[in-house]
C-alpha cells in the first residue's frame, strides 16, 4: 500500500494515551501488548481524507469529539435476552460496554478441550494459548494501522476461542457485544481471537448491538487463524447505535485446505468502516468474504477489504450487497491481490448496490492487482434501483406498495444471507431486512 506523507493531525485519541497505563498491572503479557499498541499510536498519524483509502469518509466527528474509556461495569443493565440465539443458549460470551459479563455468559454446551473465555481472565491466568495467538495476526495484517494499534493500546477484554486439532464444535458460539447508554462518549476496544487448529471446525456469530441511541466509539479487532484443513464460519452482525462510530478490523490467515467463510451484516452506526484482510498461508484454500449493508438516514458505511492470494490454487468469493436509502452513503473498495507465484486462482468479486433514494450515494471500486498469469478473476460493480416493472408485477397480484418493496428488497438481500448456517441468524436477518424496508417506507411517508 502506498504511503502518503501526512501532516500529523492532533486528535484527542493520542491524548488518551496518558490514561492507557491505568489498565496495566494485571498481566505482564497484556501490558506488553498495550505498550506496543501505544507505541504504534504515537508513531502513526490518524488517517484523513487526504489518504486514498480514506478519501470518501470523514472522521472529523471522531477526532474532534471526546471519548473516554468505558468504566468497569457496575450499572443496571436492561434485559437484552431477546438477542440470545436459541442455538447458542449454552455457548455465549457477553460483553457489556466492553467489559465481560460473567453473569450473562455460559459455555456449558462446549466440549472441555475447547478453550473459550474472556481475554482478561485468561491473561491473568497466563494462558499459553492466548499468548501464542493474541495479536499475532492483527499485528501481521495491520502493522501500520493506527486503529489496530489503538485497540491494542487499550486492550481491556474480549473473546478467545481455541479449537483443538480434529475437533468439530457443532454448537455455534455467540459473541454478544452489548452497548448500553449508561455512559455517553465512551469507547470500547473489544478483541476477538479465533484459533482453529488442524481439521477443526467452528461457527462464530460476532454480534454488536447498541441498546440505546447514545454516542460511542466501537473499535473491534478480530483475529482468525485457520490451520490446515480447518473450517471457520464467521458471521458478524453490526447493529450499533445510530449515533455510534464503528471501526472494525478483521485479520484472517488461511492455511492449506482450510476454508474461511465470513458474512458481515452492517445495519447500525452513524459511521462504520469494516476492513477484512484475508491472507493465504498456503496452497489450496477457500475463503468467502460476503457482506450485506442496509443503511438509511445519514448513515455512512465503508468496506475496504483485502483478499491476498499468495499461493496457488485458491478459490475466493466476495459478494457485497448494499441497500441505500435517505441520504446514506455507501463506500466499497475491494482489493484482490494475486501474487506472482500464485497460479490457478479462481476469484469472484461483485459489489451490487440498490439505491432507493435520490439523495443516497454510492462509491464503489473493485480493484484487481494480479501479478500471476494463470488466474480467473471476475469482478464487477452495479448500482441500480427497484425496477418499476418488478413492482408492477407484484402489485398486479394484489400486494400493496409496501409489501411489494419488502419482497423485492428481501429478494435482493437474500443471496448474502442464505448461506449462513445458523437458522435463527438467518431469521433475524430476514427480520432486519423487513424492518429496514418498513422504516424506509415510513420515513418516505413522513416527508
Amino acid at each position, binding site marked *: 500500500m502506498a504511503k502518503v506523507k501526512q501532516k500529523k493531525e492532533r486528535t484527542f485519541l493520542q491524548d488518551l494515551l496518558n490514561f492507557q497505563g491505568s489498565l496495566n498491572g494485571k498481566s505482564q503479557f497484556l501490558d506488553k501488548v498495550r505498550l506496543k499498541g501505544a507505541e504504534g499510536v504515537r508513531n502513526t498519524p490518524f488517517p484523513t481524507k487526504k489518504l486514498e483509502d480514506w478519501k470518501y469518509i470523514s472522521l472529523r466527528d471522531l477526532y474532534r469529539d471526546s471519548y473516554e474509556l468505558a468504566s468497569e461495569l457496575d450499572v443496571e443493565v436492561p434485559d437484552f435476552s431477546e438477542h440470545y440465539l436459541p442455538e447458542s443458549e449454552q455457548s455465549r460470551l457477553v460483553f457489556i460496554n466492553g467489559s465481560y459479563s460473567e453473569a450473562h455468559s455460559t459455555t456449558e454446551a462446549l466440549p472441555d478441550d475447547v478453550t473459550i473465555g474472556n481475554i482478561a481472565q485468561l491473561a491473568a491466568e497466563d494462558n499459553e494459548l492466548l499468548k501464542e495467538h493474541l495479536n499475532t495476526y492483527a499485528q501481521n495484517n495491520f502493522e501500520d494501522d493506527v486503529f489496530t494499534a489503538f485497540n491494542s493500546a487499550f486492550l481491556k477484554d474480549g473473546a478467545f476461542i481455541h479449537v483443538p486439532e480434529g475437533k468439530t464444535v457443532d454448537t455455534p458460539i455467540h459473541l454478544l457485544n452489548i452497548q448500553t447508554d449508561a455512559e455517553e462518549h465512551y469507547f470500547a476496544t473489544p478483541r476477538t481471537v479465533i484459533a482453529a487448529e488442524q481439521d477443526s471446525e467452528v461457527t462464530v456469530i460476532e454480534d454488536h448491538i447498541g441498546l440505546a441511541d447514545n454516542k460511542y466509539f466501537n473499535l473491534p479487532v478480530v483475529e482468525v487463524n485457520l490451520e490446515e484443513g480447518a473450517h471457520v464460519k464467521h458471521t458478524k452482525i453490526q447493529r450499533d447505535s445510530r449515533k455510534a462510530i464503528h471501526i472494525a478490523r478483521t485479520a484472517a490467515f488461511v492455511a492449506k485446505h482450510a476454508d474461511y467463510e465470513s458474512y458481515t451484516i452492517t445495519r447500525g452506526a452513524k459511521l462504520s468502516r469494516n476492513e477484512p484482510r484475508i491472507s493465504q498461508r498456503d496452497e489450496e484454500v477457500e475463503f468467502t468474504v460476503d457482506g450485506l449493508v442496509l443503511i438509511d438516514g445519514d448513515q455512512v458505511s465503508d468496506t475496504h477489504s483485502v483478499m491476498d492470494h499468495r499461493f496457488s490454487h485458491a478459490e475466493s468469493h466476495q459478494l457485497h450487497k448494499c441497500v441505500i436509502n435517505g441520504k446514506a452513503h455507501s463506500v466499497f473498495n475491494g482489493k484482490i491481490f494475486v501474487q506472482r507465484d500464485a497460479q490457478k486462482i479462481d476469484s469472484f468479486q461483485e459489489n451490487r448496490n440498490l439505491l432507493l433514494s435520490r439523495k443516497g450515494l454510492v462509491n464503489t471500486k473493485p480493484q484487481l492487482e494480479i501479478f500471476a498469469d494463470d488466474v480467473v478473476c471476475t469482478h464487477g460493480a452495479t448500482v441500480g434501483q427497484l*425496477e*418499476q*416493472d*418488478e413492482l*408492477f*408485477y*407484484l*402489485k*398486479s*397480484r*394484489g*400486494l*400493496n*406498495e409496501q*409489501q*411489494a418493496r419488502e*419482497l*423485492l428488497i*428481501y*429478494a435482493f438481500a*437474500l*443471496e448474502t444471507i*442464505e448461506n449462513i448456517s445458523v437458522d435463527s441468524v438467518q431469521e433475524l436477518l430476514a427480520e432486519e431486512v423487513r424492518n429496514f424496508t418498513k422504516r424506509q417506507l415510513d420515513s418516505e411517508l413522513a416527508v
Partner: protein
Amino acid sequence: MLEIKDLHVCVEEDGTEILKGVNLTINEGEVHAIMGPNGSGKSTLSKVVAGHEAYEVTQGDILFEGESILELEADERAHLGLFLAFQYPVEVPGVTNKNLLRQAYNTIAQEQGREELDPLQFEDYAKEKLDLIKMKPEFIERSVNAGFSGGEKKRNEIFQMAVLDPKISFLDETDSGLDIDALKTVANGINQIADDDNAVVMVTHYQRILDYITPDHVHVMIDGEIAKSGDKDLAIKLEEQGYDWLIEPATASVNGEQQ
C-alpha cells in the same frame, strides 16, 4: 363487466401516443382474443387495464362493473378482481410461489370480505390448482419464476390466475414461447378456469392458441385502434391472409365498430 371507452393512452416519459381511441366491452362468461401485428398496442392495452404507471390515459375511461378504475393503483385493481398474466413474468428469488400467492390471495380475500386461508389451508387449496397446469407439488415451493424456463414462467402465470380466481383476466402473449404440448396444457388450464362468472381476454400474435380455446369475440388491433371485430372466423382469416388487408385507409371508418 369491463367497458373500455374511447381510450387514448401515451407513454408518460416521452408522450408517444400508443392507444388512439379503443372501444371494447367485455361481459361475464365471454372469452375474447385481441390480435394484431407487433407494436399495435395490444400489450399496452392490457398493462393499462392492470394499472401500469408508465402509461398515462389522456382521454376516455375504463369502467369495471360500472365504476371507473382509472384512479386506482394496480393492487387496488387486483383487489377488485382484475388479473394480468405477464408476457415477461418477473423473477423474485428468495420468495416462494407459495408465500407470494398466499399473501396475494389473503390480501385480495381481505379486500373482498372473504375468508383468509392459513398456511396449511392455502397449501391444500393451491395444490388442487396445480393439476390445471400439470405441475408437481414442488412447484409451489420454488422461488417465484427464479430460474424458470420460459414455459414454466407462462404456466406459473396461469397457475397464479387459477389461485387468485379473478373476475377478468388479460393474458398477454401467454402462448408465445410454448412448445405444442405446453401450449395444450396451458390452453386446457385456461379453459377450465373460464366459466360463466368470469371473463378472459387473450392477447396474441398467432391464431395457434385459438385452436384450443374458442373465443366468443376476436378483435384486431392496428396502430392503437381496434380495426375490426368478429368471431373466431376472423382469426382464421387473419391466419390465412395476414393483417395487410386491414392496414388500409379503411381503418378509420371501421374504428368504433362494436361487436
